[in-house]
């Protein structure tokens, strides 16, 4: 144990770098995923088959084949065709594509649960499509989708552990190296586990704050008690529920 602590201490500086890589992947992937989710989520709702078809194919493909296989292709096979990206970029792109596809279902489901009457009111006021979505529909769907996006974000964080597979040195890699150096599986993993837990906790915390804000915008604010903010219950909006696109 004391040996372990010594090695652990000597490796703490590199943990900083590892956390940075994990955060870069998670946040980069999340931003890309969110952009894709919006694009595909609305794309999958359009009436035009020319938009809806490709959106659905994209969603099904990237949800259906698994993240590792996608990472493998982007990192190890595409270069054979002369298409080569930095490892970090590959990680972000792969996470973004995969979770973007899951997220698209969340977006689609949440937008679908905004009452049709809200769309009708926007038509009656003669708003343009983009205006409707930006000012009326999305702000309402947003409050519904955050809890499910939080789940996805946690899964994305955990998915970023595949970084080692593409030569990146993230928290998972750091844990593996610690384990190799100390031969202490349980202690090493506990260290890694706590790091992931803390990151996940902070992310959830941030997302809960976002949700609170979104709800308050809708006049449904629950005036967050300290426990609401600190607690991690991803208060799933009931209408959003039930997996209409519950991702993951």
């Amino acid at each position, binding site marked *: 144990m004391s040996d372990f602590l010594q090695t652990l201490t000597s490796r703490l500086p590199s943990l900083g770098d590892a956390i940075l890589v994990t955060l870069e992947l998670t946040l980069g992937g999340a931003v890309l995923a969110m952009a894709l989710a919006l694009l595909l989520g609305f794309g999958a709702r359009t009436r035009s088959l020319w938009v809806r078809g490709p959106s659905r194919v994209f969603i099904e493909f990237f949800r259906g084949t698994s993240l590792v296989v996608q990472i493998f292709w982007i990192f190890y096979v595409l270069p054979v065709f002369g298409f080569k990206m930095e490892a970090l970029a590959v990680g972000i792109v792969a996470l973004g594509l995969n979770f973007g596809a899951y997220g698209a279902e969340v977006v689609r489901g949440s937008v679908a649960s905004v009452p049709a009457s*809200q769309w*009708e*009111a926007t038509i009656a006021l003669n708003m343009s499509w983009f205006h409707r979505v930006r000012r009326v529909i999305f702000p309402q769907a947003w409050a519904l989708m955050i809890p499910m996006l939080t789940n996805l974000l946690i899964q994305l964080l955990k998915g970023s552990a595949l970084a080692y597979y593409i030569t990146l040195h993230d928290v998972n890699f750091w844990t593996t190296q610690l384990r190799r150096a100390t031969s202490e599986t349980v202690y090493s993993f506990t260290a890694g586990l706590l790091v992931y837990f803390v990151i996940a906790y902070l992310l959830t915390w941030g997302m809960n704050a976002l949700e609170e804000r979104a709800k308050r915008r*809708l006049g449904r604010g629950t005036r967050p008690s300290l426990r609401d903010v600190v607690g991690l219950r991803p208060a799933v909006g009931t209408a959003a529920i039930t997996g209409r696109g519950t991702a993951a």
Partner: protein
Amino acid sequence: MTSSTSTAQGGVPAIEFKDVVKRFGDNVVLDQLNFSVAKGDRVTLIGPSGSGKTTILRLLMTLEEANGGLILIDGDPYTHEYKGDRWVEIPEKRRRVVRNRVGMVFQQFNLFPNMTVLENIIEAPVNVLGLKKADAVARAEQLLEQVGMSEKRDFKTNQLSGGQQQRVAIARALAMDPEILLLDEVTSALDPEIVADVLGVLREIAETTDITMLLVTHEMQFAREVSNRVLMFDKGQIVEEADPETMFTHPKHERTQEFLKAVLG
């Protein structure tokens, strides 16, 4: 069958339905319906549940697509037109120009919960009509004054009672300065005591403006006071048409007599 392409006042009618067909699946709701509403007219649609009253308003608001026929606003084709002998949809871009002339108030108010009362009202004038924000706010305040909601200006909509929400919804529709106002059972989601309140607001609007109104209501008293023409619908057809006084006191058609008896008790 009984078609009614009436209106005396001359000039182009504000609303005109020509052979309008609307089906839901196999259910033919409107079968070649013809009728028109002159500018400044206040027309009430009455009729049993499922007769197609709401459908007419929704077609006028392009919330439903017709399956045939023409809908004209001020003589302009609105949702579809005939190109040669083909019946084609008018693209959204052109629809939007015409749609600016039409406003609607819904039974369930449909206010935007993510905005305050004021924001609900100025949203479309600023972003659709392109009004300056200051002007839109000034107009909104005037309208809120008119519906007696001035002091709730900055409230979230779900902090309001049903009657208050409906009054804001009316102000929101009026803020677009529509030439035509559609009202679908605007009081039937409200508490009975509050109904009078909202009807009062509408009566005032009817008296002080010359907006063309097309309304569906079960408040026969209100129909009597506000409208100058009542259309009785049944099965997607106009069964009878008269001024309110005649319609409510001496209905001719058997179906109308039956209906009025059930509703007036």
